[in-house]
């Protein structure tokens, strides 16, 4: 009985010792292929989008009604849009083979080669993602300014 109990207690150590003795059977470190970075980045966009949605919901739940908090919500909306555009842009760049560029007189003369399909047009549009990220940051600026001012007014009152 005592032998069985001792064996039972020692079993995890015995297993560890066995694995240490035969290292060729343990694959502790996995290798990562090139697309993994893109997948992580895209997942980060999804996570970012979800976080922005959650923030909007949170602000609305918190019933902060001042102008600053409204601007913050608009900022979140623009961030979500930017995330969608960026996500689409990354996807198109990685998975669409038909997007080609020509460069005759340097980088600044780069052209998106035709025929201009919907995919190419969408791709071009996604390159203009700052049209969403700049307003997002602008509304963040307005939001912070508004919140700061209303805080100062509250303090005065």
């Amino acid at each position, binding site marked *: 009985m005592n032998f069985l109990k001792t064996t039972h207690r020692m079993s995890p150590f015995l297993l560890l010792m066995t694995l240490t003795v035969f290292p060729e059977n343990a694959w502790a470190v996995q290798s990562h292929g090139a697309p993994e*970075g893109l997948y*992580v*980045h895209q997942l*980060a*966009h999804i*996570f*970012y989008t*979800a*976080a*922005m949605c*959650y*923030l909007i919901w*949170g602000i609305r*739940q*918190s019933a902060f009604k001042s102008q600053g908090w409204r601007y913050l919500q608009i900022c979140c909306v623009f961030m979500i849009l930017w995330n969608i555009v960026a996500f689409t842009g990354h996807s198109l760049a990685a998975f669409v083979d038909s997007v080609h*560029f*020509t460069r005759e007189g*340097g*980088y*600044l*003369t*780069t*052209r*998106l*080669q*035709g*025929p*201009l399909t919907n995919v*190419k047009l969408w791709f*071009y549009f996604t*390159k*203009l993602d*700052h*049209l969403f*990220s*700049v307003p997002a*940051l*602008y509304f*963040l*600026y307005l*939001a*912070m*300014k508004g*919140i*700061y001012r209303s*805080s*100062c007014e509250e*303090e005065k009152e």
Partner: protein
Amino acid sequence: MTSLIMLPAILVDMVGSFIIIVLSFLSLRYAWLLIRKQPENFLWGFLFYFCLTLVCFSVSRAVGHLLKQLLLIADNTEQWHVLAPYSGGFNTLLMISLAAVSIYYHKGIEGFRAIQQKAKSLKEANEQLEVSADKLLKMNANLEEMVEQRTKKLSASEKKFRNFFINSKDMVYFCDSVNRLVNMNTAGLEMLGYTMEDERNLTLQNIFCNEDDLEKYFETLIAVGFVEDLEVEFVRADGSVIYVLLSATAVYDEERNFIGCEGIAKDLTRVRTMMEQLASSEKMASVGQMAAGVAHEINTPLGVILGYSQLMMDDFSPDSEEGQSLQVIERQAKACRKIVADLLKFSRQSESARENIQINEVLEDVLAVTEHSLNMDHIHAHRDFSDNLPAIVGDTEKLRQVFVNFINNAHHAMEEDGGGDIYLSSRYEEESNRVVATVRDTGHGIPEDVVTKIFDPFFTTKSVGKGTGLGLSVSYGIVQEHGGTIEVESPVKGRGGEKIRGTAFHVKLPVTLRESPSVNEDLNLEQF
């Protein structure tokens, strides 16, 4: 259109990146101002970290984009390919961080709201507490003021009633339910002749003279709740009796149980004595009037009888039977005339002289006449005369008669004992401006039941033929005539309060000087 130029996109990318860097820093500045203003505010903390992460992300991304564009413009594509993974990696990391910070917001805000709620309720509670504390403070101040005022009033009231209790000239007492005296004022103790220490052991049974009075007192007290103007007799510590007018009220507890009584007693002994003296005076006055009337009526026929008997005596030989009978008639008529004269003296119907008299001289004169006779019966006279006594106004002869009467009575009282002492004294009583002459003997004294009758005309304890019972009546009338009083003590009270065998007569005569030393005048104009 066969192709699209990418230049607008490149420009938008570069300008946009620059604007993003600027805006993110401006936002961070406001977040920084907020957190600096209220470092403990969770929301500002969240916004600060949100902006900070966004700045990092924006800078990372914008700088990456700008670098990319610049490197590509400069045709350094290879370098960008080296840097691109780092830029992308940072961007990914910072996006995840930004998302994590945003998600953190919700949990934080819950905590913040809970804290805010708590703070709000605490603030409200604190405000209510402050209001309550303020009210309490005001109430306390008001209460303190009220207590102070009440205490002052109570103190004044207590002082007032204590003064009343202490300074009252009447007896004020408090009893418990078993008749034990709980408290009695000084006047009461003095009235009863007890000390403060005796007070603890005193009960009403000790001071009530008659048990019937005490029974009546309690019956009335229990039945009616009070006793009003009850005339009772109290026994003093020395056994003497005083007459008091008693009023008392029953005391009840909250459940209407009898727990004792409180009462006031007024000493009426002096009033009662005065009333008796007044009654006696009135009696004497009426007796005097009657005596005067009888004497006046008898005196005329008596004079006629005496006159005719003397006329007839001239017609008969003294040795003859008729002559002897007439002598008896004359003798008895004269005796009657003396009685009539005494009656007139008693009723102040006779003449009086008004002259300044030294009472010591009067007493010496009387002793000069009577001392020999006293000595014969082993009675020794003692003199204790005060010097420089003021003179009194009166009739020397009549006053001599008064003291002769007292000495004769004393002589008579000590005769049976085979001797004794007689003390004659005089003193000046300054407070009443009177001269007091005292005749005291060591005889058998006057029985208590007859002491009030000794001044009545014809009252005598002597055997028949030895006294007419007019001596003290006449003395009374003379002293009254002089505006004085006679006080009798039997037995006599000594200086230490002890009782001495015998009788003392105190004659108190007012001091009033006359300008003319010796003037005879009629006190009563009626002559007979």
